[in-house]
């Protein structure tokens, strides 16, 4: 079972890595780092680390965009080229095939995360002589946010076309990022019933605001273990739930390469 999933993940990873998208992301990373270094010469205060804030902002963008685009490209290619056909005529189970494809993209994201972590550490060492561990912790949280957004997209691709799925995922992500502010607004301005409804939404909707600790990190306020553990568990549980639901739907789907 695991070897089948691993085979599919490996080939998905390899095929995606060889696409032009990878060169595009590497170029974008280099541009963003250059821009960050240029901007970091602006002195806006002793404690506030502009460069680190810029790095995190850019890498939030890159990690999420990369997750969406790689996953979108994987599903689009699979459907338009019928790539599921040959593997599914072997002994592999549909569910294992489906999970393996997702894991292939996750591996690619882990590679991107490792690349960012190394680049960030080196730059911080060169610029300030030390590594802000908080920045690496925040990078880890961002990757969990990207994982949840990818799981959302993957789930949606089993219901609607890949293009619609990516549009809905971006909308869900934007709403999920504003839930902190929405709850605060409800607590200050709305009735108790409305506030409770919004509190329900706060936990049920994919809540991406749990992962954003950029301000703490940029001000060198360390993250507690609870601030790391809760988003980790939340992301892993929610993503697993979405993947499980998506797998159930995929197992029952009529797979017709000509009609996809």
């Amino acid at each position, binding site marked *: 079972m695991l*070897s*089948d999933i691993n*085979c*599919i993940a490996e*080939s998905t990873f*390899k*095929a*995606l890595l*060889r*696409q032009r998208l990878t060169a595009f992301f590497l170029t974008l990373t280099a541009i963003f780092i250059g821009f960050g270094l240029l901007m970091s010469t602006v002195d806006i205060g002793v404690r506030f680390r502009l460069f680190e804030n810029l790095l995190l902002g850019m890498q939030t963008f890159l990690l999420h965009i990369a997750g969406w685009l790689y996953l979108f490209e994987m599903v689009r*290619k699979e459907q338009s*080229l*019928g*790539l599921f*056909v*040959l*593997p*599914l*005529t*072997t*002994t*592999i189970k549909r569910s294992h095939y489906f999970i393996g494809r997702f894991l292939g993209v996750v591996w690619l994201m882990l590679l991107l995360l490792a690349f960012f972590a190394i680049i960030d550490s080196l730059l911080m060492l060169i610029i300030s002589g030390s590594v802000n561990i908080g920045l690496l912790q925040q990078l880890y949280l961002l990757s969990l946010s990207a994982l949840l957004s990818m799981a959302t997209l993957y789930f949606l691709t089993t219901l609607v076309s890949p293009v619609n799925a990516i549009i809905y995922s971006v909308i869900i992500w934007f709403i999920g990022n504003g839930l902190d502010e929405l709850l605060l607004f409800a607590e200050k301005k709305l009735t108790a019933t409305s506030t409770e409804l919004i509190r329900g939404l706060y936990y049920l909707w994919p809540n991406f605001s749990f992962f954003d600790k950029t301000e703490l990190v940029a001000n060198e306020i360390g993250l507690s273990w609870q601030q790391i553990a809760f988003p980790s568990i939340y992301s892993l549980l929610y993503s697993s739930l979405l993947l499980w639901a998506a797998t159930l739907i995929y*197992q*029952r*789907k*009529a*797979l*017709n*390469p*000509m009609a996809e």
Partner: protein
Amino acid sequence: MTDKHALILLGHNGAGKSTLIRYLLGFYPDERGHPFLPHWQHLPSYTDKTIGYVPELPFLDPHLTGWDTLKLQAKLNHTPLSKQQAGDAVNAVGLDSDVLTHRIQTYSKGMRQRLMLAQACYHKPDVLVLDEPLSGLDPFGHQAILDLLQTMKQHSQLLLSTHSLEDAYRLGDEIWLLQAGTLVYQGDKPGSIEALNDLYFKYPPHAIGH
């Protein structure tokens, strides 16, 4: 189907040949609402056998190499495959083994078709399912693949869908004829190509939209 037997699926465009093949391969877990599938519910699927499948179109990832593709299929079939064996498999379908290191996006249509045959045949499966495998091949390729399929009959059952009555007559032992999703003939191959021709034209397509 009996052992070492070639079953040929014939029928007009849209008769359901490819759909029947995909049904047997388990691509339709739920037949509700499909116009053809309820007709075939008595047919067993192939899920308990080792299968080699050559679909109508080359469903290959253009970013993988030929070797990546063969290796993936071999791992999923739990049949070990060395580079030497992969080279032999592509040689058998008329490809040079050097092409295994090239990405599939550089392959021509004919090369992709041959790679599909190689990935289906290399492990001598119990059942070899081929959906119009000879379309798009030049006469040399056509002849070479026909010869290969004759050889494959020695160790695999063949299920082949084709529009070529000549190929059907040459390769087949049993004929299944489909018309608009219904199996209208199921029996031994007629005694001559003319008789097969007559049988085929007895079941023309219905008017479009019927």
